[in-house]
C-alpha cells in the first residue's frame, strides 16, 4: 500500500486537499463545505446527476452524504459547522478529507500522511483540540463514492496539526529572510479573516489574530439588500453565483435572477455585490491595520516580508488590502496556499519517518 503526503484544509466555506503523486506535481482540489444526507436512488430517479457529484458512504453507516455543490443545490441549510470549534475533529471533516483525497488519488487502497491546520487563536487557546483531531481522523476507513459499486480503503495518520498561515509560509516563504524579519499572512476565508506572523517558522502570537469577517459576510449583505430591494429572498446558491460573477471580472456571467416575473439586470446585481464587498473590505483593512499597526504615521505591516494574502477572499479583497499594504503579494493559487504548505510538510515528515535519522552514541 502506498502512502501519500496530504494537506487537509477544513475551512468553513471551502474544504481543500493537496497531495503529491510519486514526487510529481502537486494535485489540489477544493469543494464547498456543505454536507447533506443523500438518498442516491431518489436523487437519480429525479434526474439529478449523481455520477459526477461527491456522495460518500462510510462502511458500517446506512446514510450517504452529498458534499459540495450537490449539497448546496439540494438543501436549504446544509451542514457547514460554522461556529462549532469541534468541527475540525468531526466526522464531517473526515468525510471531506476522504472524498477529496479519493478524487485525487486513483488507488483502491492507500495511506494518507496528513498535516492540517487550526486558526492561530484556536490553536493557542485550545491545545487539547490538536489531539482530538488526530483521534477523529486517524484510522483505517472504508467507504464508497459510487453508491456501493466499489469500495475504497484509506489509512489515515495525522502527522501534525499546525497553525493556519504556517502552511502558506512553508510554500511561499523566503528562506533567505533574516532571522529577525517577520513573514506575514492575511488569510481571508469564507467566514473569517485570520492573521498570522512568524519569525522563521516560529509564530509571533501578538500578531496572530482572527475576526469573523469574510466573503460570506459580503454574501449575507448582498442577500439582505436584495430582499429589501426586491421583496423576495435570494437563495444562498444565487448569492454565491453573484459573488463568483463579480470576482471573475467579467469572465463569468451573472446568474439570471427574477423577482415577480421580472429579470433583475446584471448591473444591478453587480452594484449590490460591489457595495457589500467594499463595505466588508474596509472592515477587514481596519482590522488588519489595528492588529499590525507599526507606527503613528500609519505604517501597517511595513517590516513584514513577505506579506501574503491568501484564501478565497483574495479574489474580492486583495485590491483594497493592497491599498493599505503596498507590498502585499498573493500566490498564484491563493485557495490552496495553506494546504500546499501542509502537503510539503507532510512529505518532509513522511520521508523522515521512512528514513529515521541515524542515532549516534
Amino acid at each position: 500500500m502506498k502512502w501519500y503526503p496530504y494537506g487537509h484544509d477544513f475551512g468553513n466555506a471551502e474544504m481543500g486537499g493537496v497531495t503529491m503523486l510519486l514526487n510529481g506535481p502537486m494535485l489540489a482540489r477544493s469543494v464547498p463545505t456543505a454536507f447533506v444526507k443523500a438518498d442516491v436512488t431518489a436523487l437519480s430517479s429525479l434526474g439529478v446527476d449523481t455520477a459526477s457529484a461527491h456522495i460518500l458512504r462510510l462502511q458500517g453507516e446506512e446514510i450517504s452524504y452529498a458534499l459540495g455543490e450537490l449539497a448546496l443545490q439540494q438543501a436549504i441549510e446544509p451542514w457547514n459547522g460554522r461556529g462549532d470549534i469541534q468541527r475540525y475533529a468531526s466526522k464531517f471533516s473526515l468525510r471531506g478529507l476522504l472524498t477529496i483525497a479519493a478524487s485525487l488519488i486513483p488507488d483502491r487502497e492507500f495511506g494518507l500522511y496528513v498535516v492540517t491546520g487550526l486558526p492561530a487563536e484556536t490553536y493557542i487557546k485550545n491545545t487539547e483540540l490538536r489531539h482530538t483531531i488526530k483521534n477523529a481522523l486517524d484510522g483505517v476507513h472504508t467507504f464508497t463514492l459510487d453508491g456501493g459499486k466499489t469500495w475504497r480503503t484509506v489509512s489515515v495518520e495525522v502527522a501534525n496539526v499546525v497553525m493556519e498561515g504556517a502552511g502558506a509560509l512553508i510554500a511561499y516563504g523566503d528562506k533567505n529572510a533574516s532571522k529577525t524579519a517577520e513573514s506575514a499572512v492575511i488569510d481571508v476565508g469564507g467566514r473569517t479573516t485570520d492573521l498570522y506572523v512568524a519569525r522563521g517558522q516560529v509564530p509571533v502570537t501578538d500578531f496572530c489574530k482572527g475576526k469573523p469577517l469574510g466573503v460570506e459576510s459580503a454574501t449575507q449583505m448582498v442577500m439582505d439588500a436584495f430582499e429589501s430591494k426586491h421583496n423576495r429572498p435570494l437563495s444562498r446558491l444565487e448569492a454565491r453565483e453573484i459573488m463568483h460573477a463579480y470576482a471573475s471580472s467579467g469572465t463569468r456571467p451573472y446568474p439570471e435572477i427574477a423577482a415577480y416575473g421580472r429579470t433583475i439586470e446584471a448591473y444591478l446585481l453587480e452594484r449590490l455585490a460591489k457595495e457589500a464587498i467594499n463595505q466588508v473590505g474596509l472592515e477587514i483593512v481596519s482590522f488588519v491595520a489595528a492588529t499590525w499597526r507599526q507606527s503613528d504615521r500609519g505604517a501597517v505591516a511595513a517590516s513584514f516580508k513577505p506579506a501574503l494574502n491568501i484564501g478565497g477572499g483574495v479574489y474580492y479583497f486583495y485590491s483594497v488590502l493592497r491599498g493599505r499594504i503596498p507590498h502585499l503579494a498573493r500566490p498564484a493559487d491563493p485557495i490552496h496556499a495553506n494546504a500546499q504548505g501542509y502537503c510539503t510538510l507532510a512529505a518532509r515528515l513522511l520521508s523522515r519517518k521512512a528514513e529515521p535519522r541515524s542515532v549516534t552514541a
Partner: protein
Amino acid sequence: MPKDTERYQYFTVGLERDSWALERFKADTKKHHMSDQPGKLIALRLTEYYELLERGALPALASVPHASESGSKGNRHKGMSTRERQPVEEEVIAVSEDAEQNADEAADYWSTL
C-alpha cells in the same frame, strides 16, 4: 498565402471549441478586420503580450473586445453587460524554491509542540 519558411517559423495552435479564449479571439479578428488572417493576429497579440510583460503592465489588455459583443455562447445573461472594473495591480508569487527547506525547519518546530 504560400508559406515563407525562410522568414517565419510556423506553429500549429489549437483553441478548444466554445472556449472563452476562442470566442474572444474571434471577436478580436472581426473587430480588426482580420478574420481572414487569424495567424497574423495571433502573432500580433503574442508580441503585445511579451511587450506588456516586459513593461510590467500585463493587465492593460483593454483593447481586446469582449466575446459578448459578438454574442458569446457562454454568456447566459446577454444584453446585460456590466461595467468592467479597473484592472488591479497585483504581485503574484509562485511557490518558493525554498519550500523544501522551509518544510524542514517547520518539521523541527511543529513536531516539538
